[in-house]
């Protein structure tokens, strides 16, 4: 349907507006935005700011009042909505699995609609269950009511991925789980997206989640107006205004530390010290700092040497643009 079939394609929103009849102000007011191919863009904003409405216009669950949407160059508003939706993955907070269908049937539904042969659907179900770390032989035949909340959300994501759509829309897909499960799902999802390179629009009101997952973040205010649209590091580093700063909260520096890993910091002291608390290359700087504080020391051992508190501060200190180049 779109020019490339499984890897992400570009999404363009042009002057997109949704004005519900009888409402004084539009829910989404004249939004123009480009979402680059293969990137995960997080819409973050308070409840009722229009972020979900904006997202739902992309698969036309909400019909725009005016404006234009292009996915991979195709004018979305000229396509058949049901056909369009079969090519856009959709995952929501309440998951909405079909309780009368098994896990395999839930996941296989869209491929079936698209006319895939059953053998191919079966293979795909296996593959997706493995991808979301659920043992296929155990879970294939289960019904949604036999699953925990976290398992349901994984199946929700697997179902959204089923037909290997180039574009995914996700509305707080991990919102309904406990913090531990959520963190776990987020980590898995980051790993998944590194493999899959879908174009993903991810809606959340949780700024921490936005930082963790997003290649870019669009901070939205009332009417889905874009307050700032940039990479997480750039937003943390230079919030556009007080509204964005308020969203970030008081601990912007700590959040920036959480974006960087030990491997991103060149250490000057390259002699390992086994007596110090040790971190791995993959540890975030925030975790490294936490470890230092917990041990009452200002240094910790890394695979390449010893990281000091001063070096850690320097990273988020006066010359941030240099440190920000670290690959996320």
């Amino acid at each position, binding site marked *: 349907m779109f020019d490339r079939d499984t890897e992400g394609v570009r999404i363009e929103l042009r002057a997109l507006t949704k004005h519900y009849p009888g409402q004084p102000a539009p829910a989404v007011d004249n939004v123009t935005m480009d979402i680059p191919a293969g990137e995960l863009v997080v819409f973050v904003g308070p409840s009722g700011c229009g972020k979900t409405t904006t997202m739902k216009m992309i698969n036309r669950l909400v019909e725009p009042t005016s404006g234009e949407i292009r996915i991979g160059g195709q004018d979305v508003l000229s396509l058949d909505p049901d056909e369009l939706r079969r090519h856009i993955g*959709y995952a929501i907070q309440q998951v*909405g699995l079909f309780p009368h269908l098994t896990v395999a049937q839930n996941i296989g539904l869209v491929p079936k609609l698209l006319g895939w042969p059953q053998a191919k659907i079966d293979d795909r179900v296996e593959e997706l269950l493995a991808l979301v770390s659920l043992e296929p032989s155990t879970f294939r035949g289960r019904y949604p009511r036999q699953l925990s909340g976290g398992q349901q959300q994984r199946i929700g994501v697997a179902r959204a991925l089923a037909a290997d759509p180039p574009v995914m829309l996700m509305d707080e897909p991990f919102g309904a789980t406990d913090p531990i499960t959520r963190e776990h799902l987020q980590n898995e999802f980051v790993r998944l997206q590194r493999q899959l390179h879908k174009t993903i629009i991810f809606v959340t009101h949780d700024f921490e989640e936005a930082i963790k997952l997003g290649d870019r973040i669009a901070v939205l205010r009332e009417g889905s107006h874009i307050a700032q649209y940039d990479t997480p590091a750039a937003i943390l580093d230079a919030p556009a205004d007080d509204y964005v700063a308020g969203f970030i909260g008081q601990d912007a520096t700590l959040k920036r530390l959480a974006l960087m890993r030990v491997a991103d910091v060149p250490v000057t002291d390259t002699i390992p010290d086994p007596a110090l608390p040790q971190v791995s290359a993959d540890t975030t700087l925030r975790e490294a700092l936490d470890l230092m504080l917990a041990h009452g020391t200002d240094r910790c051992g890394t695979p390449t040497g010893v990281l000091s508190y001063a070096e850690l501060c320097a990273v988020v200190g006066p010359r941030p643009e240099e440190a920000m180049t670290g690959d996320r």
Partner: protein
Amino acid sequence: MSFGEYVTSRWDTISLAAAEHALAVAIAIALATVIGVGAGIIGHHSPRVREMSIAAAAAILTVPSLALLTLLIPLTGLGWKSTLLALTVYALLPIIRNTVTGLSGLDAATVEAGRGMGLTRARLLLKVQLPLAWPLILTGIRVSTQMVIGIAAIAAFVDGPGLGNQIFEGLSRLGSVNSLNATLAGTLGIVVIAVLFDLFFSAVRHLTTPRGLRVRP
């Protein structure tokens, strides 16, 4: 003549009346299911249709059955036609109501997910909404059936089929030979039919409720 002897001697008449009684109920329920579920589906999307159809079906229920059957005589005459028409309209309310409740009570997220995945409205209705609402719709049909089995006895008044004939026959000759036996045979026959229909529906419920709705976590 004892009750046992009465039933044995009139077995042909009684069993035919019972069969006709059950048939009339079955046909009326089948018609009411088609009309009621249809109205319920339309009513699910249109609040106006919902309110009107429920109000109409409720209004019909308040008309005494004897009066309704009498009113139908000029339109559909005596016998089967009037009986079926009356039973069908009496059966509508629980079916429409439960269809609407069943459909609107579905988890909104399930429906939204279905739309978001690209199910057409028709497919969503047939593959998701109706199967999930089915246990409740079936309950409505079951309630209607029990109700209509009793009302069907009145149909004898317009020369309709069924065990009502036994009851009316007995009542009209009260005090004479076998009058009590005839009334008793009609009444017990109706009870037996009601029990059999209920067993039937409980089997249908068991066989048609999607497995995913029956499993325990």
